[in-house]
């Protein structure tokens, strides 16, 4: 597991990364509850933050590709599967810690107003994986870090808007309500809404399974080995 430990060393060596990882989630804990949804707003928007954080983490793979680390790795006795698996595992661990801190702070700040923090934590953890898969697939399309990251910002906001994070999906025209089910953000928003309205936990099954399926699909798209 050398690559696994190395990801931590590499990521946390830059102090700015730590700030980036925690500043936005901690800030959004304090956003109060608005008219919609019946949950502190930061907890509903958190899926977008996860996409952003995952994009930052997943950037390491693109960096490896652009500075030819991947090419050198392919000459070493490490399989591409091992490389990807250990990288993704490390990112998942990092994001899970962030989720844990986020939910924990949420319980302290909002107390009773936060419905079932454990379910929220499960949703966030599953969505972190989807987000990592998404960032991997996204970066496999680009050659320059700057370009990929700056376009991604816009794409995330668009996905959030269409996926029902910013406003209920019902506010949009009929034909779009069906189409946006193809976005992972839709399912993240859907599952936080299920928790917010306090419906039964077993309703969470579908969104969680769909998110995992999305994760697999994205991983299949993004895990192709590209050396250039």
């Amino acid at each position, binding site marked *: 597991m050398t690559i696994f430990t190395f990801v931590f060393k590499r990521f946390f060596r830059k102090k*700015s990364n730590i700030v980036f990882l925690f500043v936005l989630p901690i800030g959004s804990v304090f956003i109060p509850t608005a008219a919609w949804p019946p949950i502190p707003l930061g907890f509903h928007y958190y899926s977008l933050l996860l996409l952003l954080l995952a994009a930052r983490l997943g950037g390491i793979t693109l960096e490896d590709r652009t500075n030819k680390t991947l090419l050198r790795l392919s000459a070493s006795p490490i399989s591409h599967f091992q490389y990807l698996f250990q990288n993704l595992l490390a990112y998942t661990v990092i994001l899970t810690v962030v989720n844990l801190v986020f939910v924990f702070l949420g319980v302290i700040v909002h107390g009773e107003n936060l419905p079932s923090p454990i379910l929220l934590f499960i949703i966030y953890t599953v969505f972190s994986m989807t987000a990592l898969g998404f960032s991997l697939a996204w970066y496999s399309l680009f050659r320059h870090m700057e370009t990929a990251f*700056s*376009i991604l910002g*816009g794409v995330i906001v*668009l996905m959030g*808007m269409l996926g029902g994070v910013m406003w209920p999906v019902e506010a*949009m025209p009929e034909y779009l309500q069906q189409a946006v089910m193809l976005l992972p953000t839709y399912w993240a928003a859907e599952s936080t809404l299920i928790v917010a309205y306090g419906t039964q936990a077993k309703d969470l099954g579908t969104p969680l399974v769909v998110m995992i399926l999305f994760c697999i699909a994205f991983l299949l798209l993004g895990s192709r080995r590209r050396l250039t």
Partner: protein
Amino acid sequence: MMLMKASYFIFRRMLRDYIGMAILLLLPIALISVLALIADGAVSEPLGIPMMDEVAVTMVFAFIMFGGFYTMEYVRGDLMSSMKWRIYSLPYGIHNHAYAILISCSLFNVLQSLLVVFYTIFVYNVNWGNLGIVFFIILLVTAVIQLVFINFVLGVKKYKTAERLGTGFGLACLMLGEVWFPLPDGPFFSFLSTYSNPFSLGQNMIFATITGENIEKAIISLVIFIALALVLAITAVYFGRRKLI
């Protein structure tokens, strides 16, 4: 004369920068189109103008806040990387080049914003009021934003820090302008959300042109803008003299 020529060539270079175009031109158009889906027909409460008009104004100004990255990139590319030795060896003052970058980036940004404005007019029938005044306001806001960003890039030692400052500045403006969520009530916060940042100041002026109300708010904003532009221009000259020897 040389200034004009340099500006013209920088402008031509910018026309080929497809990524910048994608982010600052296509993205706002995409966002406006998505927001139009849910805004249809609704009227925005305190101002009494259609929701769509408010969305259009917000989007145009939100993207102007990030337009300064053009200036930043070109200052770095031409005056702070190895390219600078080539520019220094020309029979042409380095400050001229900085001015040229400032001028062409501002104009390019104004052009992009106007394209978005025309898109909203033709597709969504948004009422912007007098287009001449809109042009003037956009020009003023853009100029101030470019000055802010040139201050960042010249005043800070590392380019990466300047970049982060730029992003932070843009996001802070949007946050103070109450784009994402309303700020708490109280006189202090209402002052913050009205006069504290170029985004709100620009919005004040545009809304005054559209509705014809709150003229004094718009005039105060205009005065703040002109003062801001002067101060920023002076500091930019100061930082520039220190950095670009």
